[in-house]
């Protein structure tokens, strides 16, 4: 059974639609700027959604809704998708998030921080009949949620899925990453020799997945989610889990490495992650495939990143354009990979999306644009 990704939507600092986001990226705009977190942390380089602009936008979706900010982000992301694709009785909502409404803990509100409650609220807002599925698997959640959607459709658990992903920029997460010494004091530089760590970001993303064959759809051809079994916070030095994930995805898709036109990688700009990815890609003979990280544009959006970056990957495929890896200037990994440095128009058909995360998780997904699809 073939499973496809159809409509998509993004709510991010770069805009409130997939088109707006992609246009900004094409014009070389990054969301990363100095953002004030609190009196202790001060300001850090991060991607943050403009409060006034978003509130104005949300008014046009629902002027009466009174819920948490994270619920509004999810509703804004999903609304256009539901408008274009009416829910069926067996439609399922799949939510990807690492921390959900963790901001509630700062207000001593434990109940509001339960992730399943967040999913149930969105579920009932849109009128889903089935119970939602929530995937919380560190930074691979976004790609893993798509993998789950594809598999659940294949096993006929549902005929379509509305996959949403979200995480907010919070002092909870910033403080944690700082304790890990993982944050950069400058805009991040994935794969670069001078990279010094991550910038965090936030976004809400929604996509519609089903087994219908439509003209503007991209097929999920293969996917795998394999653990490193090495360390809970550091990636495997040999990129074992990522290597196995990509290998299995390629096998399922029945394609070879040389058929991949573009890799949308994880590229957090930490020394270890980027190095690990370069090793894994080389082990699979993918070192010449044009590759980028999109985290220079958005920051690391955690549970949203896998889905956000997949949507941008799909736009690259549909528009036949390779996007430069923002922040990269010179090779910073011991093994060479082909980092995209200039925007380039090129016929693209097949892309590989990868993600890695705390807990030794990895996900790989192969996306293919249909032959008869033409868009410039």
């Amino acid at each position, binding site marked *: 059974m073939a499973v496809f990704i159809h409509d998509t939507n993004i709510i991010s600092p770069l805009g409130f639609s997939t088109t707006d986001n992609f246009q900004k990226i094409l014009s070389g705009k990054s969301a990363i700027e100095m953002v004030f977190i*609190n*009196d*202790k942390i001060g300001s850090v380089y991060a991607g943050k959604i403009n409060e006034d602009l978003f509130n104005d936008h949300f008014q046009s979706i629902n002027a009466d809704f009174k819920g948490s900010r994270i619920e509004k982000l999810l509703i804004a992301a999903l609304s256009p998708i539901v408008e274009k694709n009416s829910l069926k009785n067996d439609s399922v909502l799949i939510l990807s998030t*690492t*921390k*959900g409404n*963790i901001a509630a*803990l*700062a207000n001593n509100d*434990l109940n509001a*921080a*339960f*992730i*399943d409650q967040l*999913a*149930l609220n969105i579920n009932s807002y849109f009128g889903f009949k089935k*119970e939602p*599925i*929530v*995937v*919380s*698997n*560190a930074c691979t959640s976004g790609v*893993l949620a798509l993998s*789950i959607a594809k*598999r*659940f459709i*294949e*096993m006929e*658990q549902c005929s379509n899925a509305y996959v949403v992903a979200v995480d907010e920029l919070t*002092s*909870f997460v910033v*403080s*944690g990453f*700082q*304790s*890990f010494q993982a944050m950069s004091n400058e805009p991040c530089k994935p794969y670069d020799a001078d990279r010094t760590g991550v910038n965090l970001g936030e976004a809400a993303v929604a996509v519609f997945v089903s087994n219908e064959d439509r003209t503007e759809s991209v097929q999920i051809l293969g996917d*795998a*989610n*394999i*653990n*490193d*079994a*090495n*360390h*809970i*916070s550091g990636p495997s030095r040999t990129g*074992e*889990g990522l290597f*196995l994930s990509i290998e*299995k995805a390629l096998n399922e898709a029945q394609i070879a490495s040389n058929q991949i036109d573009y890799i949308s990688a994880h590229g957090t700009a930490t020394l270890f992650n980027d190095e690990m990815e370069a090793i894994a890609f080389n082990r699979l003979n993918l070192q010449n495939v044009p590759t980028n990280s999109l985290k220079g544009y958005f920051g690391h959006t955690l549970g949203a990143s896998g889905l956000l970056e997949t949507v941008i990957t799909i736009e690259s495929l549909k528009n036949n354009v390779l996007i430069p890896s923002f922040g990269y200037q010179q090779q910073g990994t011991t093994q060479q990979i082909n980092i995209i440095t200039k925007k380039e128009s090129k016929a693209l058909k097949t892309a590989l999306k990868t993600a890695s*995360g*705390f*807990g*030794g*998780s990895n996900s790989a997904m192969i996306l293919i644009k249909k032959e008869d699809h033409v868009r410039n």
Partner: protein
Amino acid sequence: MYAISKFINISQHVVCENGKQIFHNQEDTFAAFMKNVYKSLNISYPKFYKMDDLCKLAFIASELLLQNVTEKDIALLFSNNEASLDTDLKHQQSIQNLEDYYPSPAVFVYTLPNITIGEVSIRHQLKSESAFFVAEKYQTEYLHKYAEYLLKTNKAQKVLCGWIHFLEGNYKADFYLVEKIGILEHSKEHINDIIK
């Protein structure tokens, strides 16, 4: 047709294997209870003591379940209701007061529920498929189907399913192993009996 080959239940008072009590809790605290079970296993795994309570629970349940299991391609499907909220509260506490502000990396790393999967993967060297789901109650319907899907499509040779609950001192772990041959049919009824 698939089967459940073994199941482990841990509650505030006992540890049961396949429905029979194998350990009785004589301690006041969770930490002491788990330490006793750990010691009784006669293994040397000092990392155990660094784990947060949710991971200790997942580790012990998996350790008991995977004793004598040599297979390495075991998919891990863990779930709970509270994700990592118990440890999240600890991290929040460490940053709440800006005058007494000491976030700890050893705490922060556990503010993700899938670290339970990570710890079990590392311990048993399982380079396999996994996912952490969050739901109000155990989702027998799709977990039953998904476990069989992973086996049918050869994405795993066995599947370890677990419900791990730990929040503010209350805990419960219900783990079962799904594979081709076992002691019970892998049915929704049997799963519901195990998870209750």
